[in-house]
């Protein structure tokens, strides 16, 4: 059973360390006791954090999340956090083969992923990855509406660049290289302003 340091938990969930400490203080995840650099957190803490993220994305207030977590055992938390457990497979191999031999079409167990597309080794120089990003599939509710006149089904998505916890820059991608450079400069300037504060 793997365990994790605070920084590993932060890296694996994308949550800042101070947020995780805040969740411990708020009782959303169990306290590890005395906290120090060598403190290890169990597997279930990672599952709890992922469930919190999922509930937070569903716009549940912290109090409701806490109530929900309190009502759940570790196993339920792991199940709900959506660890990558196997899907149940319908039918045995023998049933599957026999229905094919009988000329029937057996039910497929899952949708197959499309074959991998070419990704350029230095694709990050070009702004747009060659696959849809998660935000393209499920835009967060706080996203601004698509710009007027944007073609339906156009392959674009919004990215949120966090300047401070309260200030964000929203960028519609893909962008041209000059526009990307402008974003770089805007963000650099905004961060400089923040430091001057």
């Amino acid at each position, binding site marked *: 059973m793997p365990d994790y340091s605070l920084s590993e938990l932060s890296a694996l969930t994308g949550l800042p360390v101070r947020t995780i400490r805040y969740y411990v203080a708020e009782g959303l995840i169990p306290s590890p006791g005395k906290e120090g650099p060598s403190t290890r957190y169990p597997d279930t803490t990672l599952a709890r954090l992922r469930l919190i993220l999922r509930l937070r994305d569903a716009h549940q207030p912290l109090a409701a999340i806490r109530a929900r977590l309190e009502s759940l055992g570790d196993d339920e938390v792991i199940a709900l956090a959506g660890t990558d457990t196997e899907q149940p497979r319908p039918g045995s191999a023998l049933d599957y083969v026999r229905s094919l031999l009988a000329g029937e079409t057996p039910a497929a167990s899952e949708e197959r992923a499309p074959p*991998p597309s070419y990704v350029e080794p230095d694709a990050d120089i070009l702004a747009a990855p060659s696959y849809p990003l998660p935000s393209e599939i499920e835009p967060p509710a706080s996203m601004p509406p698509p710009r007027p006149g944007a073609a339906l089904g156009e392959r674009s998505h919004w990215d949120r660049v966090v300047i401070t916890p309260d200030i964000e820059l929203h960028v519609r991608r893909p962008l041209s290289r000059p526009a990307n450079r402008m974003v770089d400069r805007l963000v650099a300037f905004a961060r400089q302003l923040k430091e001057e504060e």
Partner: protein
Amino acid sequence: MTENTTNLTVRTDRRLVRAIHHSTRYALVEITAPPANAAPVRPRVNVAFVLDRSGSMGGRNKFDLARDALREGIERLAATDRFAVVVYDTEIDVVAPGRTADATAKEAAIRRLRDVGPRGGTNLSGGWLRGAEQVSSALDPEAVNRVLLLTDGLANAGITDRTELERHAGELRARGVSTSTFGVGEDFDERLLGAMADAGGGAFRFIANAAEIPALIRSEVGELLEVTAKDVELRISGPDGLRVEPLAAYRFERSARGGVLHVGDLVADQVVRLVLAIGFPLGEPGRDVGVEFAIRDRAGSLDGSATLAWAFADGIANDHQSRDRDVDRVVARTYADRALRDAVDLNRRGEWDAARTNLAAVARKIHRYAGHDEVLRGIVAELEREAEAWSVARMEIDRKQMYSRSAYALKSRMPDGAAQRRP
């Protein structure tokens, strides 16, 4: 940066990712299977040998050689194993129904196989499915359950659609039955046999000359008897928004924060190196983003994990970061092998320009980051040569050679298709 456990190593080409743009970085994962003596007892084998007996198999002694190789394979099985023998042309005959490989069963199967000769058309799907039925009827989760299919021709009866057969091979794999395929000569469809083996979690082997049939079957049966890690899975997980794309030809189930790559069965000391393209979400400069890689297998002989951390940074730091050239080389080789495999298909369809343009485009991309690295420049030069070579009609045997060479490489196999092992 390298993360190690005994059987798993993970490295990346670059440690920094862009804070306000989406980066793609590559993870090079190396999995090493345990040695033969690590497991006190080898997993049992539950195998069906499926042999094409269509008329064309009579040429160049192909059928006789295959039959002899099969006999030798059967003789190597232990009394704890199970086997079945199926031959097919337009009709399908179960020569030996699945049963325990004791001396009586082996003798009976070999005797009956002696009376079988080549004839008729090619119901590849029927023969393969009968073989799968024999294996499935005594499916043993602890055993290596596999169908070995040998053919020299095109599927022209039964199910003949490549995509459909590939899908069935994947469905059977998910239900515990794997498929390995052997293509003999120049008349079989390597895309069909390659796709069935990729989806079926087994190996595809190309047999250019009939004389190689015994050696290749011997090698495959040998590997079957030397499996030390069964149904190996590589699990990748990181923060929300992480996008994983394997470049190697293994089945991949994507999930919200990563996915599971099904590497299949590994033989003693086998080394598999595979490349994953990882697309990153945006993040705050200075913060780390961790991705966990975990392997395990059904036999419990492989169990380990490694976490690799990247750091978000601004554009300038990203542009000036150092690269792990070893990783760059494997990534470039993988893209080259994929492009070469695709060129074969384009060449056969007469799309000369597309074959040339694709290879040249991959060469240009590698050239962009090759710098003075000789290995990378060598790959660029090779691709430029091949771009010319595949823009004219090629002989079928050349196409098969190139397809199998690149398909083997994409599965970390040796140039003859055998598993690559730790020295």
